[in-house]
């Protein structure tokens, strides 16, 4: 209990950020019309591609003798990029459909 409280106290800023972000995430989505569900899912999918930053850090820190880290990191960078680039491009294509119809 005491440990937990002190942990909370030490990490209070991060906790605030996480909690507020959860509220933001929920509120921002709240009013989406159902036609936009799929593009929204796809856009959110692209955003979590931010995990690629972790892959870049892993890759960039890997010692040139550490083959495991190099290879896994390289794959991580590739798949992460796939997530980001593919995600944004496919979302854009979906939304192109909608805007084309609008005009």
């Amino acid at each position, binding site marked *: 209990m005491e440990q937990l409280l002190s942990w909370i106290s030490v990490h209070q800023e991060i906790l605030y950020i996480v909690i507020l972000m959860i509220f933001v995430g929920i509120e921002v989505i709240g009013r989406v019309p159902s036609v936009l569900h799929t593009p929204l899912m796809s856009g959110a999918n692209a955003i979590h591609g931010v995990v690629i930053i972790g892959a870049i850090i892993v890759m960039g820190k890997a010692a040139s003798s550490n083959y495991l880290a190099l290879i896994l990191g390289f794959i991580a960078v590739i798949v992460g990029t796939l997530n980001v680039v*593919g995600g944004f491009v496919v979302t854009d294509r979906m939304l192109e459909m909608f805007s084309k119809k609008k005009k």
Partner: protein
Amino acid sequence: MELNLLTFLYLVASVTFIVGLKMLSHPASARNGNRVAAIGMTLAILGTIFLYEEEGARLGNYGWIFGGILIGTVVGTLAAKRVKMTAMPEMVSLFNGMGGACAALISLVEFDHLAHLDPMMAGVLLMGGAANAVKGFLLIIVLGLIIGSVSFAGSIIAWGKLNGSIKDFSFKGQHIFNILLLAVIVALAAYLIVFLPANAVFIFYTIFFLSLLYGVFFVFPIGGADMPVVISLLNSFTGVAAACGGFLYDNKVMLTGGILVGAAGTLLTILMCKAMNRSLTNVLIGSFGGGSSSAVAAAGGAVGSHKEISLSDTAVLMSYASKVYIVPGYGLAVAQAQHACHELEKLLESKGVDVKYAIHPVAGRMPGHMNVLLAEADVPYEKLLEMEQANDEFSTTDVVLILGANDVVNPAAKSDPASPIYGMPILDVELAKHVIVNKRSMKPGYAGIENELFFRPKTSMLFGDAKKVLQELVAEIKNL
């Protein structure tokens, strides 16, 4: 200085993610929202590559990094550009799986680093009261590993199911098996973190493989048509996995981006279920698809006899109507009949018939499926009416042509409280003078239930594959 600039860039990127997501949820701004988020992402990535420092040292291995990014960009762009409209959900699933894999790979490498501190360094760390820090670190690594792996494996299965290369597969007691599997994973993870045992590496890899296995078994039994919901759920998983990375590197943009997607994705999953009038548990346990036969049997009592209509009668009826509504459904997508459908519509319009489409929000197998499908065939946007509008119009409509739709016009949703789709708003096609239903047989649709509409006096059946029937219908009308 550089690090401070990087912090600022991360802050900007976090804000673009929020703003982007917000814009994405409004039709008019959606496309720009996607771009805003993409710009933020670019800033964050370039910033990391060029500005990141750890203990004063810059990142190295630029060749590998740029190589990886180049490969990913080319492959990702091509894949995303080439994919057919209707195959987009599976593409999203695949990309989502890549994100999960990325998170899992990061955990693998970081664990490897941690393991190689052993035994000397680790001992020192543990002695030095830093045990809690190591455990916290390990907790995050293991969490990222589990969630990332489940998301990766699950997404790949979902992708396979959607493109048809993987078939449904389930065995009796699978749900119990799944729960047990999850319990074992959690127990192993707790053991690993709390006791830091000597065979940590072995346990870690066991957790890894079991998580992959869990991802597979988690998605396997779920009906193919429920995949969009599952993908959305896995999407939010990957968000949480990315957030783990944020904790690991004390990196705010990963943290906020991940949490944002985790929260938004969870809500989106729930909203998607709601649009289909189902609960998330219902989707995950998949009772829907499984219970179909009994539901049919139960509804059997209401069944009478249906009447068929010939192609030429249909042709006459439609050409001399003044107002026709087309109700597209999943069958139209399966038959890839959108172009033929547009052709019919243009032909009728040229004969002075007023033709419109009535779009049910959950027709097809993904939200917006019909909009995307018809847009591909260049059907003008003004011709697509939403459910509420269409329902106001049916009473003055001469002919409603239902093309491969079933559940979305099933009156049981209004009249039969025992029906699994009870309560779902439907298209009130029966208000029109004539209803013509095109499908291949009398088989039920997605919900697996009988449709009384087919036996009503106003309804005539026009059997056959939607594309073939439409092409013949066009020919027939031209010959009139």
